[in-house]
């Protein structure tokens, strides 16, 4: 065996496939656990019975599993996947480990749309998602337009524009919240902290393919992203088409975030913590990082949402409260223990 073959840190397709498979198995286990847990008693036997078809059609257990829990779990999975994928991508493009998928102000733009929709009294199946997605698109184009430069997008300009746009929309949102009627207030606040309870299969059919396609597109740029994290000029020296890669990443993720936020509200922390954990465990190569972080995001959000609906059962918490409440201390402990892994090994 020659020296070079002994190098352990080399990434191979086999390693990526193996780890991705392991993550998928974990995902399925967490999904099944989540199906079992909840206000109504459902046993593992019931779940298996429903899947194999031995439970009769009119059994209420069937209804609980298929109509209530499963769509919600799938939505949580897709949203978590998307948020984490967005985090990884933005962190690479902006060369900033603290970037989250909402950094371009997408969150506040879509929240602005949603809050207006709720104030007017639109439904959660069409009106709220539609206005929220519209708000997100509007912000994206605003930030891209304001941040565009002759030499392509510049990270610091985009970041700053995002922050300012965010502040502006947050002010408008606060205005609506302060002046809204009491019965609408609860709905708004719930939405603002992330709410997965409105999940329907039709929504999943819209989000699902989009999340998958976005994942595949970004994965095909994973080596380009690796090199972009080491600097724009060096990346283009090495043959990376920097502005094209950045534009593809920014537009794909922003659209994805707009869509996801429209159906789930604002769920913070996932896009920050999960990519960070993935980087701690598997280093910085995006060929490994993208699948690990994305599936990890799905697992994390399903687990968090399961807690959100069981912790104060029969009442519910917004899932964003759980992600932040658990995420923040966990993150701080890790940071204290291990140092910021993005700069030290």
């Amino acid at each position, binding site marked *: 065996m*020659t*020296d*070079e*073959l002994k*190098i*352990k*840190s*080399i*990434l*191979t*397709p086999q390693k990526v496939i193996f780890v991705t498979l392991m993550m998928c198995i974990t995902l399925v286990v967490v999904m099944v656990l989540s199906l079992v847990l909840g206000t109504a008693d459902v046993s593992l036997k019931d779940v298996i019975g429903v899947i194999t078809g031995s439970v009769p059609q009119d059994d209420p257990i069937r209804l609980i599993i298929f109509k209530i829990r499963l769509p919600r779990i799938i939505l949580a999975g897709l949203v978590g996947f998307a948020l984490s994928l967005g985090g990884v991508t933005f962190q690479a493009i902006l*060369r*900033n*480990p603290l970037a989250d998928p909402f950094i371009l102000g997408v969150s506040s733009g879509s929240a602005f749309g949603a809050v207006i929709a709720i104030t007017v009294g639109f439904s959660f199946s069409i009106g709220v998602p539609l206005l929220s997605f519209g708000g997100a698109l509007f912000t994206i184009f605003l930030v891209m337009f304001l941040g565009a430069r002759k030499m392509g997008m510049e990270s610091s300009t985009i970041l700053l524009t995002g922050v300012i746009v965010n502040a502006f929309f947050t002010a408008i949102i606060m205005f609506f919240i302060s002046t809204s009627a009491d019965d609408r207030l609860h709905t708004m606040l719930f939405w603002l902290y992330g709410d997965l309870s409105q999940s329907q299969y039709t929504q999943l059919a819209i989000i699902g393919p989009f999340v998958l396609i976005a994942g595949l597109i970004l994965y*095909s740029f994973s*080596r380009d992203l*690796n*090199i972009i*994290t*080491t*600097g724009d*000029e*060096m990346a*283009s*020296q*090495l*043959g*990376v*088409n920097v502005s094209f890669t950045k534009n593809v990443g920014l537009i794909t993720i922003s659209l994805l975030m707009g869509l996801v936020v429209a159906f789930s509200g604002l769920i913070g922390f996932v896009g920050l913590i999960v990519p960070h954990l993935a*980087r701690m465990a598997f*280093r*910085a*190569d995006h*060929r490994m990082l993208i699948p690990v972080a994305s599936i990890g995001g799905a697992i994390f959000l399903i687990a968090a949402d399961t807690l959100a609906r069981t912790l104060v059962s029969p009442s519910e918490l917004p899932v964003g409260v759980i992600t932040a409440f658990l995420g923040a201390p966990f993150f701080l402990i890790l940071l204290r223990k291990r140092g910021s*892994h*993005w*700069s*030290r*090994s």
Partner: protein
Amino acid sequence: MEPILKLNNIGFKYEEKQILKDISLEVKAGEILGILGPNGSGKSTLLRVMDGILPPEKGEIFIKGKSYKSFSRNRLAREVAMVAQEQHFRFSFSCIEVVLMGRFPHLKRLQFENSNDLKIAADALKATHAFDFAERSIHDLSGGEKQRVLVARALAQEPRVILLDEPTSFLDLKFKREIFRLIASLSKEKGLGVAIVSHDIDLVSQYCSNIILLKNGTVYKTGDPDSVITAENIEDVYECPVLVDRNPLSNRPRVSVR
């Protein structure tokens, strides 16, 4: 001997400001071209033009007789490599991962590095005496070690020409010497063309066979160290009184500030 890299009457403008004017030069195989000049004389811009990152406004660049215009960026990255003055790595890559980035222009979009790429990267690390820390994080290296890894990455591109932009400016004496010696031996052994921008006139004088002295974006003087590094030339270009004598070790011109 036919030059590897040839610049013909290059001009470059940035926002109406003329940065480079009428620059012609050649880089030959196994030879180091030193590019000297005061701050703002256009050294780094010249290097970026030579690298194809900045398209010249006038003139043409040839590599092995073929114009840059006929090359894609990817193709060019297999001909010319650059080592920057300093590069910050935001995320923790291992040294071997950094060197493997040099294989980027050789790979297709979804391709992983194969054993041949790995061998090239490992050989590059050995050539720069950096193989021992192949698995260490780039963040845990000293400045000199890091520059050696970056030279190894340039080698992994398998280029004909390596350009270095003040690669030793943040290094202490020992690492400066190490980097210059490394570059000299690599250019000889591998028949690479090398161009190096530096503020260190003495090291350039000692290691480069050919020097180009820039002033205000034009070639003030070009030739071997003896003809370029004279008190008159240096005083005129750097606007600073100097004494030029001979380095007793290398017998090359040596500059002291008066």
